[in-house]
């Protein structure tokens, strides 16, 4: 999904502006959102809610740019809890459980859930070796992918094979159709391949890419 989240290489998105002695959380609610996200994940599991990242990317650009990091997390969390019928609008407004509604139950994982980020030990041979020249595919699907726009269609060199990982891509509804384990490679792109003469001659950008994003040169 070519949303504003895929912002590598853009201009006009504001200053970097580091804050001296920045606290971990600027306001108490930010920490609570972090904790609530962690502690509710077992409940959202098994309810076919798809990918959290996908939902973040669906936030329209003006909202995405206005909202803080934890605000985005909170809005997506509320949305997922509501769509999975774990909470209702009325309950959210009142902050208390509706006694008429049954207590939610934990469920086993479903195929539409967010996938684990664990390395998989499946013995699938890699298609590429370190040193291979590859080209990132030019793909613009409507779902979540992890191939940034700025690298699409560009050639680079495989520098490392990290082993097998489940593909995090989703369809246009945020769901995954399976694990699709693929090797993940670090691919080195010369900065001038990516940015023309605007890039530094000796500079590089290293991007971690699933095998299916790559084709041999």
């Amino acid at each position: 999904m070519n949303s504003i989240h895929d912002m590598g290489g853009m201009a006009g998105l504001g200053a970097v502006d580091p804050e001296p002695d920045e606290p971990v959380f600027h306001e108490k609610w930010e920490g609570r959102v972090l904790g609530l996200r962690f502690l509710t994940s077992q409940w959202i599991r098994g309810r076919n809610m798809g990918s959290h990242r996908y939902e973040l990317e669906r936030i329209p650009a003006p909202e995405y740019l206005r909202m803080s990091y934890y605000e985005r997390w909170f809005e997506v969390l509320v949305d997922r809890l509501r769509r999975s019928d774990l909470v209702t609008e009325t309950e959210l407004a009142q902050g208390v459980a509706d006694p008429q509604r049954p207590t939610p139950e934990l469920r086993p994982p479903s195929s539409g859930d967010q996938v684990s980020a664990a390395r998989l030990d499946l013995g699938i041979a890699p298609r590429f070796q370190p040193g291979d020249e590859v080209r990132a595919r030019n793909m613009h699907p409507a779902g979540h992918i992890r191939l940034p726009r700025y690298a699409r269609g560009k050639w680079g060199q495989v520098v490392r094979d990290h082993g097998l990982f489940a593909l995090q891509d989703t369809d246009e509804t945020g769901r995954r159709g399976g694990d699709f384990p693929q090797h993940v490679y670090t691919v080195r792109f010369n900065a001038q391949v990516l940015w023309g003469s605007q890039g530094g001659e000796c500079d590089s950008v290293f991007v971690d890419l699933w095998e299916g994003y790559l084709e041999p040169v």
Partner: protein
Amino acid sequence: MGNGTKDAAGGRGFMNSAASEPTGGDGDHHDHQTVPSDIALRVKALESLLVDKKMVDRAALDAVVDTYETKIGPRNGAQVVARAWVDPAYRMRLLANGTEAIAELGFGGEQGEHMVVVANEPKIHNVVVCTLCSCYPWPTLGLPPVWYKSAGYRSRAVVAPRGVLREFGTELDDDVAIRVWDSTAEIRYLVLPERPAGTEQMTEAELANIVTRDSMIGVTKVSIPTTAGDEA
């Protein structure tokens, strides 16, 4: 409405902040300040609701917040860096298998399952970003600062790293190659900064004290704080 378009003089404040290489702040730099004031209430209501439904245990929630607020942070990563500076064998293990070497010091877990450590050298400078999101090595660096999550950093670090580093006061010679690591998959990156000259007499604990978070993201180098005296 319209506050964003006029500065105190009634002019267009945003034209000033629109320069391609902003060097100063505009006084409203931390995006949490623009959060609607009712969000604290909405989060509180959600927490109460989930506790009431017995989906969330408040003590467990407190523990998560406390962990990230007080136990996990860049002091962890600083210990890793200091150890690598004083122990060449550890440094080799760290660069060969970051996750395992970091686990030797007791650090690991969420967002640190697949660690790669990249070492700065006199002619190589590494910097880490996550353009698509804000991925970050939590067990060694804690939660990311606001600037790391900002659209300004995420958008510019890959295309104009030299300019971004300059805004952090980091001037690199033209012949230093910059390596930007975009954390697009499950691997998380930690920069091993160069040990500054003049620290030969420092202990590992003293060294850990001078290693900053920003140097492990790669936007600064490690230097000896002027307040630390000149005894070294």
